[in-house]
Protein backbone atom coordinates (compact mmCIF):
# COMPACT_ATOMS: atom_id res chain seq x y z
CA UNK A 1 0.00 0.00 0.00
CA UNK A 2 1.26 3.44 -0.79
CA UNK A 3 2.05 5.71 2.10
CA UNK A 4 -0.08 8.85 1.99
CA UNK A 5 1.72 11.69 0.26
CA UNK A 6 2.63 14.20 2.91
CA UNK A 7 3.44 16.88 0.36
CA UNK A 8 0.20 16.67 -1.57
CA UNK A 9 -0.12 20.15 -2.97
CA UNK A 10 -2.71 19.92 -5.68
CA UNK A 11 -6.07 21.56 -5.15
CA UNK A 12 -9.46 20.06 -5.82
CA UNK A 13 -11.74 21.81 -8.28
CA UNK A 14 -15.49 21.66 -7.79
CA UNK A 15 -18.05 22.67 -10.40
CA UNK A 16 -21.48 23.24 -8.89
CA UNK A 17 -24.38 23.49 -11.35
CA UNK A 18 -22.08 25.67 -13.42
CA UNK A 19 -23.41 27.46 -16.49
CA UNK A 20 -20.99 29.52 -18.56
CA UNK A 21 -21.57 31.43 -21.72
CA UNK A 22 -21.50 34.53 -23.81
CA UNK A 23 -24.42 36.92 -24.26
CA UNK A 24 -26.61 34.64 -22.11
CA UNK A 25 -26.17 31.74 -24.54
CA UNK A 26 -24.72 28.85 -22.58
CA UNK A 27 -21.43 27.33 -23.73
CA UNK A 28 -21.29 25.04 -20.72
CA UNK A 29 -24.66 24.01 -19.33
CA UNK A 30 -25.39 22.97 -15.73
CA UNK A 31 -22.13 21.20 -15.10
CA UNK A 32 -21.56 19.55 -11.75
CA UNK A 33 -18.37 17.59 -11.20
CA UNK A 34 -15.35 17.40 -8.98
CA UNK A 35 -11.71 17.07 -9.94
CA UNK A 36 -9.70 15.49 -7.13
CA UNK A 37 -6.55 17.15 -5.84
CA UNK A 38 -3.59 15.95 -7.89
CA UNK A 39 -5.87 14.76 -10.67
CA UNK A 40 -4.75 14.61 -14.28
CA UNK A 41 -7.87 15.15 -16.36
CA UNK A 42 -8.27 15.42 -20.10
CA UNK A 43 -11.17 17.53 -21.31
CA UNK A 44 -12.41 16.40 -24.70
CA UNK A 45 -15.35 17.09 -26.93
CA UNK A 46 -16.27 18.48 -30.34
CA UNK A 47 -15.53 22.08 -31.34
CA UNK A 48 -17.84 24.47 -29.55
CA UNK A 49 -18.38 22.07 -26.68
CA UNK A 50 -17.31 24.62 -24.10
CA UNK A 51 -13.91 23.14 -23.25
CA UNK A 52 -11.95 26.38 -23.47
CA UNK A 53 -14.76 28.25 -21.78
CA UNK A 54 -14.55 25.87 -18.84
CA UNK A 55 -10.81 26.46 -18.43
CA UNK A 56 -11.34 30.22 -18.59
CA UNK A 57 -13.83 29.97 -15.77
CA UNK A 58 -11.43 27.96 -13.60
CA UNK A 59 -8.71 30.52 -14.34
CA UNK A 60 -11.07 33.23 -13.18
CA UNK A 61 -11.11 34.98 -16.55
CA UNK A 62 -14.83 34.44 -17.10
CA UNK A 63 -17.65 34.96 -14.60
CA UNK A 64 -20.28 32.18 -14.53
CA UNK A 65 -23.81 32.93 -15.75
CA UNK A 66 -25.01 30.81 -12.85
CA UNK A 67 -23.65 28.21 -10.44
CA UNK A 68 -20.06 28.36 -9.36
CA UNK A 69 -16.62 26.91 -9.68
CA UNK A 70 -14.39 26.68 -6.65
CA UNK A 71 -10.77 25.75 -6.26
CA UNK A 72 -10.35 24.15 -2.86
CA UNK A 73 -7.16 24.18 -0.88
CA UNK A 74 -5.03 26.11 -3.32
CA UNK A 75 -2.65 28.77 -2.20
CA UNK A 76 -3.99 32.15 -3.19
CA UNK A 77 -4.13 32.68 -6.96
CA UNK A 78 -1.99 29.61 -7.51
CA UNK A 79 -3.53 28.75 -10.86
CA UNK A 80 -1.44 28.71 -14.01
CA UNK A 81 -3.30 28.96 -17.29
CA UNK A 82 -1.97 28.49 -20.81
CA UNK A 83 -4.63 29.72 -23.24
CA UNK A 84 -5.22 28.13 -26.62
CA UNK A 85 -3.87 30.93 -28.75
CA UNK A 86 -1.64 32.63 -26.25
CA UNK A 87 -2.33 36.28 -26.97
CA UNK A 88 1.36 37.01 -27.17
CA UNK A 89 2.58 39.92 -29.25
CA UNK A 90 5.34 38.09 -31.10
CA UNK A 91 6.78 41.34 -32.47
CA UNK A 92 7.49 42.80 -29.04
CA UNK A 93 11.26 43.11 -28.55
CA UNK A 94 11.63 40.92 -25.47
CA UNK A 95 14.04 38.01 -25.19
CA UNK A 96 13.21 34.43 -24.24
CA UNK A 97 14.86 34.69 -20.83
CA UNK A 98 12.80 37.72 -19.83
CA UNK A 99 9.55 36.20 -21.10
CA UNK A 100 10.12 32.99 -19.16
CA UNK A 101 11.24 34.94 -16.09
CA UNK A 102 7.80 36.54 -15.86
CA UNK A 103 6.72 33.15 -14.52
CA UNK A 104 8.33 34.22 -11.24
CA UNK A 105 5.93 37.17 -11.01
CA UNK A 106 4.32 35.99 -7.79
CA UNK A 107 7.72 35.95 -6.12
CA UNK A 108 9.14 39.15 -7.53
CA UNK A 109 5.99 41.17 -8.10
CA UNK A 110 6.27 44.72 -9.32
CA UNK A 111 9.47 45.71 -7.60
CA UNK A 112 11.00 42.57 -6.11
CA UNK A 113 14.65 41.99 -6.82
CA UNK A 114 15.75 39.28 -9.20
CA UNK A 115 18.31 37.19 -7.37
CA UNK A 116 20.94 34.74 -8.54
CA UNK A 117 18.65 31.93 -7.37
CA UNK A 118 15.89 33.28 -9.59
CA UNK A 119 18.30 33.49 -12.50
CA UNK A 120 19.31 29.86 -11.94
CA UNK A 121 15.67 28.83 -11.70
CA UNK A 122 14.95 30.39 -15.09
CA UNK A 123 18.02 28.75 -16.62
CA UNK A 124 16.96 25.38 -15.22
CA UNK A 125 13.45 25.74 -16.58
CA UNK A 126 14.85 26.66 -19.99
CA UNK A 127 17.20 23.66 -19.88
CA UNK A 128 14.28 21.43 -18.92
CA UNK A 129 12.35 22.33 -22.08
CA UNK A 130 15.47 22.22 -24.26
CA UNK A 131 15.85 25.92 -24.85
CA UNK A 132 19.34 26.39 -23.43
CA UNK A 133 21.23 28.75 -25.69
CA UNK A 134 18.07 30.63 -26.68
CA UNK A 135 18.12 32.97 -23.66
CA UNK A 136 18.97 36.12 -25.60
CA UNK A 137 16.91 35.41 -28.71
CA UNK A 138 13.97 37.70 -29.15
CA UNK A 139 10.61 35.96 -29.31
CA UNK A 140 9.95 36.96 -32.92
CA UNK A 141 12.84 34.67 -33.88
CA UNK A 142 11.20 31.59 -32.30
CA UNK A 143 9.25 28.93 -34.14
CA UNK A 144 5.79 28.00 -32.90
CA UNK A 145 7.14 24.93 -31.13
CA UNK A 146 9.97 26.85 -29.51
CA UNK A 147 7.55 29.46 -28.21
CA UNK A 148 5.37 26.70 -26.74
CA UNK A 149 8.48 25.27 -25.04
CA UNK A 150 9.19 28.71 -23.59
CA UNK A 151 5.62 29.01 -22.33
CA UNK A 152 5.93 25.59 -20.65
CA UNK A 153 9.12 26.80 -18.99
CA UNK A 154 7.19 29.77 -17.70
CA UNK A 155 4.45 27.47 -16.39
CA UNK A 156 7.12 25.50 -14.52
CA UNK A 157 8.34 28.65 -12.84
CA UNK A 158 4.82 29.62 -11.85
CA UNK A 159 4.92 26.65 -9.49
CA UNK A 160 1.12 26.48 -9.44
CA UNK A 161 -1.15 24.03 -7.62
CA UNK A 162 -3.52 23.97 -10.55
CA UNK A 163 -2.35 23.96 -14.17
CA UNK A 164 -4.78 24.56 -17.02
CA UNK A 165 -3.63 23.76 -20.57
CA UNK A 166 -5.80 24.60 -23.55
CA UNK A 167 -4.78 22.49 -26.56
CA UNK A 168 -1.11 22.71 -25.58
CA UNK A 169 0.09 20.38 -28.33
CA UNK A 170 -1.77 21.70 -31.35
CA UNK A 171 0.58 22.31 -34.29
CA UNK A 172 3.53 20.92 -32.33
CA UNK A 173 5.86 18.31 -33.84
CA UNK A 174 6.26 14.89 -32.22
CA UNK A 175 9.68 15.56 -30.69
CA UNK A 176 8.51 18.77 -29.02
CA UNK A 177 5.27 17.13 -27.97
CA UNK A 178 7.20 14.28 -26.34
CA UNK A 179 9.42 16.73 -24.46
CA UNK A 180 6.46 18.78 -23.25
CA UNK A 181 4.60 15.65 -22.18
CA UNK A 182 7.61 14.74 -20.04
CA UNK A 183 7.22 18.07 -18.32
CA UNK A 184 3.53 17.31 -17.84
CA UNK A 185 4.32 13.91 -16.28
CA UNK A 186 6.69 15.70 -13.91
CA UNK A 187 3.91 18.01 -12.78
CA UNK A 188 1.59 15.05 -12.24
CA UNK A 189 4.24 13.30 -10.17
CA UNK A 190 4.44 16.45 -8.05
CA UNK A 191 0.74 16.08 -7.29
CA UNK A 192 -0.36 19.20 -9.10
CA UNK A 193 -3.92 19.23 -10.40
CA UNK A 194 -3.90 19.37 -14.20
CA UNK A 195 -6.76 20.01 -16.63
CA UNK A 196 -5.85 19.77 -20.31
CA UNK A 197 -8.05 20.29 -23.34
CA UNK A 198 -6.97 17.81 -26.01
CA UNK A 199 -8.08 16.34 -29.31
CA UNK A 200 -5.62 13.45 -29.62
CA UNK A 201 -7.55 10.44 -28.30
CA UNK A 202 -4.50 8.15 -28.31
CA UNK A 203 -2.64 10.61 -26.14
CA UNK A 204 -5.59 10.86 -23.77
CA UNK A 205 -5.76 7.06 -23.48
CA UNK A 206 -2.02 6.75 -22.87
CA UNK A 207 -1.48 9.50 -20.39
CA UNK A 208 -4.64 10.70 -18.70
CA UNK A 209 -6.22 8.59 -15.96
CA UNK A 210 -9.45 10.59 -16.06
CA UNK A 211 -11.40 12.22 -18.86
CA UNK A 212 -14.27 14.66 -19.02
CA UNK A 213 -16.33 14.52 -22.21
CA UNK A 214 -18.18 17.76 -22.82
CA UNK A 215 -20.75 18.72 -25.42
CA UNK A 216 -22.02 21.86 -23.76
CA UNK A 217 -23.60 19.45 -21.27
CA UNK A 218 -21.46 16.95 -19.42
CA UNK A 219 -21.64 13.74 -21.47
CA UNK A 220 -19.42 11.55 -19.35
CA UNK A 221 -16.77 11.94 -16.70
CA UNK A 222 -14.67 9.32 -15.02
CA UNK A 223 -11.92 6.83 -15.78
CA UNK A 224 -10.68 7.41 -19.32
CA UNK A 225 -11.51 3.89 -20.55
CA UNK A 226 -15.07 4.20 -19.32
CA UNK A 227 -15.55 7.60 -20.92
CA UNK A 228 -14.02 7.01 -24.34
CA UNK A 229 -16.65 4.64 -25.67
CA UNK A 230 -18.14 4.82 -29.15
CA UNK A 231 -21.57 5.44 -27.67
CA UNK A 232 -20.40 8.41 -25.59
CA UNK A 233 -18.48 9.98 -28.48
CA UNK A 234 -21.40 9.62 -30.85
CA UNK A 235 -23.73 11.16 -28.27
CA UNK A 236 -21.36 14.12 -27.88
CA UNK A 237 -21.29 14.73 -31.63
CA UNK A 238 -25.08 14.86 -31.83
CA UNK A 239 -25.49 17.22 -28.93
CA UNK A 240 -23.61 20.08 -30.51
CA UNK A 241 -25.62 22.49 -32.56
CA UNK A 242 -25.31 26.18 -33.32
CA UNK A 243 -26.39 28.91 -30.95
CA UNK A 244 -30.13 29.36 -31.29
CA UNK A 245 -30.64 33.13 -31.49
CA UNK A 246 -34.29 32.73 -30.49
CA UNK A 247 -33.53 30.33 -27.65
CA UNK A 248 -35.97 30.35 -24.76
CA UNK A 249 -35.06 30.94 -21.17
CA UNK A 250 -33.61 27.71 -19.84
CA UNK A 251 -36.44 25.52 -18.44
CA UNK A 252 -34.07 24.05 -15.88
CA UNK A 253 -33.70 27.51 -14.32
CA UNK A 254 -37.42 28.24 -14.56
CA UNK A 255 -38.19 25.09 -12.69
CA UNK A 256 -35.62 25.95 -10.06
CA UNK A 257 -37.03 29.46 -9.66
CA UNK A 258 -40.57 28.25 -9.01
Amino acid at each position, binding site marked *: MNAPLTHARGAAIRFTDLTLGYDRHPAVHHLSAKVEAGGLVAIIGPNGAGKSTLLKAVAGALAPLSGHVSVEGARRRA*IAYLPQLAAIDRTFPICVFDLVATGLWRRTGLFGGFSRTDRDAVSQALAHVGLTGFERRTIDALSGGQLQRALFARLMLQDADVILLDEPLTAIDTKTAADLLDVLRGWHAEQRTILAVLHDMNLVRDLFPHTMLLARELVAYGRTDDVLTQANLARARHMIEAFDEAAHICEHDKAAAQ
Partner: protein
Amino acid sequence: MTFYDFAIAPFAEFEFMRRALVGCLALALGAGPVGVFLMLRRMSLFGDAMAHAILPGAAIGYLAAGLSLTAMTIGGLVAGFTVVLLAGLVTRATALKEDASLAAFYLISLALGVTIVSLKGSNIDLLHVLFGSVLALDDAAMILLAAMASITLVVLAIIYRPLVLECVDPSFLKSVSRAGGPAHLAFLALVVMTLVGGFNALGTLLSVGIMMLPAAAARFWAIELTGMICVATLIGLLSSVSGLILSYHLGLPSGPAIILSAGVAYFASLAFGPHGGLVLRLLPQRHLEA
Protein backbone atom coordinates in the same frame (compact mmCIF):
# COMPACT_ATOMS: atom_id res chain seq x y z
CA MET B 1 34.72 78.12 -38.55
CA THR B 2 36.16 76.05 -35.73
CA PHE B 3 34.25 73.39 -33.89
CA TYR B 4 34.06 75.75 -30.93
CA ASP B 5 32.47 78.48 -33.04
CA PHE B 6 30.06 76.02 -34.54
CA ALA B 7 28.89 73.96 -31.61
CA ILE B 8 29.93 75.58 -28.34
CA ALA B 9 29.86 79.32 -28.89
CA PRO B 10 26.11 79.65 -29.46
CA PHE B 11 25.49 78.18 -26.03
CA ALA B 12 28.43 79.88 -24.32
CA GLU B 13 27.47 83.32 -25.53
CA PHE B 14 23.70 83.38 -25.24
CA GLU B 15 21.74 82.53 -22.15
CA PHE B 16 18.54 81.86 -24.08
CA MET B 17 20.37 79.17 -26.04
CA ARG B 18 21.58 77.53 -22.84
CA ARG B 19 18.05 77.57 -21.45
CA ALA B 20 16.68 76.12 -24.66
CA LEU B 21 19.32 73.40 -24.52
CA VAL B 22 18.58 72.41 -20.92
CA GLY B 23 14.84 72.46 -21.56
CA CYS B 24 15.10 70.31 -24.67
CA LEU B 25 17.47 67.82 -23.07
CA ALA B 26 15.05 67.39 -20.15
CA LEU B 27 12.18 66.93 -22.56
CA ALA B 28 14.07 64.38 -24.66
CA LEU B 29 15.01 62.33 -21.58
CA GLY B 30 11.39 61.70 -20.69
CA ALA B 31 9.99 61.62 -24.21
CA GLY B 32 12.35 58.89 -25.48
CA PRO B 33 11.12 55.98 -23.37
CA VAL B 34 7.49 57.13 -23.53
CA GLY B 35 7.71 57.22 -27.33
CA VAL B 36 9.16 53.71 -27.48
CA PHE B 37 6.28 52.29 -25.44
CA LEU B 38 3.74 54.19 -27.54
CA MET B 39 5.26 52.68 -30.66
CA LEU B 40 5.39 49.14 -29.24
CA ARG B 41 1.77 49.38 -28.08
CA ARG B 42 0.84 50.40 -31.63
CA MET B 43 -0.30 53.75 -30.28
CA SER B 44 2.02 55.91 -32.37
CA LEU B 45 -0.87 58.11 -33.47
CA PHE B 46 -2.29 58.35 -29.97
CA GLY B 47 0.33 60.98 -29.11
CA ASP B 48 -0.73 62.99 -32.11
CA ALA B 49 -4.38 62.83 -31.13
CA MET B 50 -3.58 63.87 -27.57
CA ALA B 51 -1.45 66.76 -28.77
CA HIS B 52 -4.54 68.15 -30.48
CA ALA B 53 -6.74 67.35 -27.54
CA ILE B 54 -4.81 69.47 -25.05
CA LEU B 55 -5.20 72.60 -27.18
CA PRO B 56 -8.48 73.97 -25.71
CA GLY B 57 -7.15 73.56 -22.17
CA ALA B 58 -4.04 75.51 -23.03
CA ALA B 59 -6.13 78.09 -24.86
CA ILE B 60 -8.46 78.63 -21.91
CA GLY B 61 -5.44 78.91 -19.64
CA TYR B 62 -4.00 81.47 -22.02
CA LEU B 63 -7.22 83.48 -22.12
CA ALA B 64 -7.55 83.43 -18.36
CA ALA B 65 -4.02 84.41 -17.48
CA GLY B 66 -2.22 85.48 -20.64
CA LEU B 67 1.03 83.76 -21.55
CA SER B 68 1.18 82.18 -18.12
CA LEU B 69 2.98 78.90 -18.09
CA THR B 70 1.19 77.63 -15.02
CA ALA B 71 -2.27 78.41 -16.35
CA MET B 72 -1.59 76.89 -19.76
CA THR B 73 0.02 73.81 -18.27
CA ILE B 74 -2.84 73.16 -15.88
CA GLY B 75 -5.35 73.78 -18.67
CA GLY B 76 -3.51 71.40 -20.98
CA LEU B 77 -3.30 68.66 -18.34
CA VAL B 78 -7.00 68.97 -17.51
CA ALA B 79 -8.03 68.86 -21.18
CA GLY B 80 -5.72 65.92 -21.90
CA PHE B 81 -6.88 63.79 -18.97
CA THR B 82 -10.51 64.64 -19.72
CA VAL B 83 -10.24 63.39 -23.29
CA VAL B 84 -8.38 60.22 -22.24
CA LEU B 85 -10.95 59.39 -19.59
CA LEU B 86 -13.98 60.22 -21.73
CA ALA B 87 -12.63 58.17 -24.63
CA GLY B 88 -11.91 55.30 -22.25
CA LEU B 89 -15.42 55.47 -20.75
CA VAL B 90 -17.10 55.52 -24.15
CA THR B 91 -15.01 52.55 -25.27
CA ARG B 92 -16.03 50.55 -22.22
CA ALA B 93 -19.68 51.55 -22.19
CA THR B 94 -20.57 51.46 -25.89
CA ALA B 95 -19.80 49.50 -29.03
CA LEU B 96 -17.41 52.16 -30.32
CA LYS B 97 -13.76 51.06 -30.53
CA GLU B 98 -11.06 53.00 -28.73
CA ASP B 99 -9.52 54.65 -31.81
CA ALA B 100 -12.86 55.93 -33.07
CA SER B 101 -13.98 57.33 -29.74
CA LEU B 102 -10.59 58.95 -29.21
CA ALA B 103 -10.68 60.48 -32.68
CA ALA B 104 -14.14 61.92 -32.01
CA PHE B 105 -13.09 63.53 -28.76
CA TYR B 106 -9.80 64.94 -29.93
CA LEU B 107 -11.34 66.49 -33.03
CA ILE B 108 -14.05 68.16 -30.97
CA SER B 109 -11.41 69.29 -28.54
CA LEU B 110 -9.20 70.67 -31.31
CA ALA B 111 -12.03 72.60 -32.94
CA LEU B 112 -12.95 73.99 -29.54
CA GLY B 113 -9.36 75.05 -28.94
CA VAL B 114 -8.96 76.81 -32.27
CA THR B 115 -12.30 78.57 -31.75
CA ILE B 116 -11.31 79.80 -28.31
CA VAL B 117 -7.93 81.05 -29.46
CA SER B 118 -9.25 82.87 -32.52
CA LEU B 119 -12.18 84.44 -30.67
CA LYS B 120 -9.96 86.23 -28.25
CA GLY B 121 -6.39 86.07 -29.37
CA SER B 122 -4.48 86.83 -32.55
CA ASN B 123 -2.91 84.46 -35.06
CA ILE B 124 0.44 85.05 -33.43
CA ASP B 125 -0.92 83.57 -30.20
CA LEU B 126 -2.22 80.55 -32.04
CA LEU B 127 1.17 80.05 -33.62
CA HIS B 128 2.76 80.22 -30.21
CA VAL B 129 0.51 77.54 -28.78
CA LEU B 130 0.81 75.36 -31.86
CA PHE B 131 4.55 75.65 -32.36
CA GLY B 132 5.98 76.76 -29.02
CA SER B 133 8.84 79.07 -28.24
CA VAL B 134 11.86 77.11 -27.16
CA LEU B 135 14.07 80.19 -27.22
CA ALA B 136 11.96 81.95 -24.60
CA LEU B 137 12.02 79.46 -21.75
CA ASP B 138 11.93 81.19 -18.36
CA ASP B 139 12.90 79.66 -15.03
CA ALA B 140 9.44 78.35 -14.36
CA ALA B 141 9.30 76.60 -17.73
CA MET B 142 12.68 74.97 -17.19
CA ILE B 143 11.74 73.76 -13.72
CA LEU B 144 8.51 72.39 -15.17
CA LEU B 145 10.33 70.52 -17.93
CA ALA B 146 12.89 69.11 -15.52
CA ALA B 147 10.23 68.09 -13.01
CA MET B 148 8.16 66.37 -15.67
CA ALA B 149 11.17 64.48 -17.00
CA SER B 150 11.98 63.30 -13.48
CA ILE B 151 8.41 62.24 -12.76
CA THR B 152 8.23 60.43 -16.10
CA LEU B 153 11.38 58.42 -15.45
CA VAL B 154 10.42 57.53 -11.87
CA VAL B 155 6.87 56.49 -12.81
CA LEU B 156 8.15 54.46 -15.76
CA ALA B 157 10.51 52.65 -13.42
CA ILE B 158 7.59 51.85 -11.13
CA ILE B 159 5.22 50.57 -13.82
CA TYR B 160 7.89 49.05 -16.05
CA ARG B 161 7.12 45.36 -15.44
CA PRO B 162 3.33 45.50 -15.84
CA LEU B 163 3.67 47.88 -18.78
CA VAL B 164 5.99 45.53 -20.65
CA LEU B 165 3.97 42.46 -19.79
CA GLU B 166 0.75 44.13 -20.83
CA CYS B 167 2.24 44.66 -24.26
CA VAL B 168 3.65 41.14 -24.61
CA ASP B 169 1.06 38.94 -22.95
CA PRO B 170 -1.91 40.79 -21.47
CA SER B 171 -3.87 37.66 -20.54
CA PHE B 172 -0.93 36.32 -18.55
CA LEU B 173 -0.54 39.60 -16.72
CA LYS B 174 -4.23 39.50 -15.86
CA SER B 175 -3.79 36.03 -14.39
CA VAL B 176 -0.97 37.04 -12.04
CA SER B 177 -1.61 40.66 -11.19
CA ARG B 178 -4.16 43.43 -11.21
CA ALA B 179 -1.53 46.05 -12.00
CA GLY B 180 -2.22 46.07 -15.75
CA GLY B 181 -5.08 48.57 -15.75
CA PRO B 182 -3.51 51.08 -13.36
CA ALA B 183 -0.19 50.81 -15.21
CA HIS B 184 -1.94 51.57 -18.50
CA LEU B 185 -3.66 54.61 -17.01
CA ALA B 186 -0.44 55.86 -15.45
CA PHE B 187 1.26 55.48 -18.81
CA LEU B 188 -1.45 57.52 -20.58
CA ALA B 189 -1.02 60.19 -17.92
CA LEU B 190 2.71 60.24 -18.68
CA VAL B 191 1.97 60.74 -22.38
CA VAL B 192 -0.30 63.68 -21.64
CA MET B 193 2.24 65.13 -19.23
CA THR B 194 5.11 64.83 -21.67
CA LEU B 195 3.05 66.53 -24.37
CA VAL B 196 2.00 69.36 -22.08
CA GLY B 197 5.59 69.82 -20.97
CA GLY B 198 6.66 69.66 -24.58
CA PHE B 199 4.28 72.26 -25.89
CA ASN B 200 5.97 75.02 -23.93
CA ALA B 201 9.12 74.29 -25.84
CA LEU B 202 8.00 72.85 -29.15
CA GLY B 203 4.29 73.59 -29.34
CA THR B 204 1.40 71.14 -29.09
CA LEU B 205 1.90 69.68 -32.53
CA LEU B 206 5.66 69.32 -32.70
CA SER B 207 6.10 67.94 -29.18
CA VAL B 208 4.81 64.63 -30.57
CA GLY B 209 7.83 64.62 -32.87
CA ILE B 210 10.37 64.43 -30.07
CA MET B 211 8.53 61.33 -28.78
CA MET B 212 7.79 59.40 -31.94
CA LEU B 213 10.63 60.11 -34.37
CA PRO B 214 13.45 58.91 -32.06
CA ALA B 215 11.37 55.86 -31.10
CA ALA B 216 10.70 54.93 -34.72
CA ALA B 217 14.39 55.43 -35.56
CA ALA B 218 15.50 53.30 -32.60
CA ARG B 219 13.60 50.29 -33.94
CA PHE B 220 16.28 50.00 -36.65
CA TRP B 221 19.20 49.95 -34.21
CA ALA B 222 18.22 47.67 -31.36
CA ILE B 223 16.35 44.36 -31.17
CA GLU B 224 15.68 44.48 -27.46
CA LEU B 225 13.58 46.88 -25.45
CA THR B 226 16.36 48.19 -23.23
CA GLY B 227 18.57 49.01 -26.16
CA MET B 228 15.68 50.57 -28.01
CA ILE B 229 14.91 52.93 -25.13
CA CYS B 230 18.57 53.95 -24.83
CA VAL B 231 18.92 54.60 -28.57
CA ALA B 232 15.66 56.56 -28.71
CA THR B 233 16.68 58.77 -25.81
CA LEU B 234 20.10 59.32 -27.32
CA ILE B 235 18.63 60.28 -30.69
CA GLY B 236 16.26 62.67 -28.94
CA LEU B 237 19.12 64.31 -27.07
CA LEU B 238 21.32 64.60 -30.16
CA SER B 239 18.45 65.99 -32.26
CA SER B 240 17.84 68.65 -29.61
CA VAL B 241 21.47 69.76 -29.67
CA SER B 242 21.88 69.67 -33.43
CA GLY B 243 18.49 71.30 -34.02
CA LEU B 244 19.37 74.22 -31.78
CA ILE B 245 22.81 74.65 -33.39
CA LEU B 246 21.33 74.58 -36.89
CA SER B 247 18.58 77.00 -36.01
CA TYR B 248 21.21 79.36 -34.59
CA HIS B 249 23.49 79.30 -37.62
CA LEU B 250 20.86 79.15 -40.36
CA GLY B 251 18.25 81.34 -38.71
CA LEU B 252 15.65 78.56 -38.73
CA PRO B 253 12.77 78.43 -36.27
CA SER B 254 14.19 76.29 -33.48
CA GLY B 255 11.27 73.96 -32.68
CA PRO B 256 10.88 72.71 -36.25
CA ALA B 257 14.68 72.54 -36.60
CA ILE B 258 14.84 70.12 -33.65
CA ILE B 259 12.10 67.91 -35.07
CA LEU B 260 13.67 68.05 -38.54
CA SER B 261 16.96 66.89 -37.00
CA ALA B 262 15.09 63.96 -35.49
CA GLY B 263 13.59 63.42 -38.94
CA VAL B 264 17.06 63.23 -40.46
CA ALA B 265 18.01 60.68 -37.80
CA TYR B 266 14.89 58.73 -38.71
CA PHE B 267 15.71 58.67 -42.42
CA ALA B 268 19.32 57.72 -41.71
CA SER B 269 18.13 54.85 -39.49
CA LEU B 270 15.60 53.77 -42.08
CA ALA B 271 18.36 53.59 -44.65
CA PHE B 272 21.35 52.32 -42.69
CA GLY B 273 19.95 50.71 -39.53
CA PRO B 274 21.30 47.19 -38.95
CA HIS B 275 17.90 45.72 -38.05
CA GLY B 276 15.59 45.96 -41.03
CA GLY B 277 17.25 49.01 -42.61
CA LEU B 278 16.75 49.38 -46.35
CA VAL B 279 20.39 49.21 -47.44
CA LEU B 280 21.04 45.94 -45.64
CA ARG B 281 17.83 44.55 -47.08
CA LEU B 282 18.76 45.47 -50.62
CA LEU B 283 22.35 44.25 -50.41
CA PRO B 284 22.64 40.64 -51.49
CA GLN B 285 23.52 38.78 -48.31
CA ARG B 286 24.83 35.25 -48.16
CA HIS B 287 22.82 33.25 -45.67
CA LEU B 288 24.52 31.56 -42.76
CA GLU B 289 25.13 27.88 -42.30
CA ALA B 290 22.83 27.53 -39.28
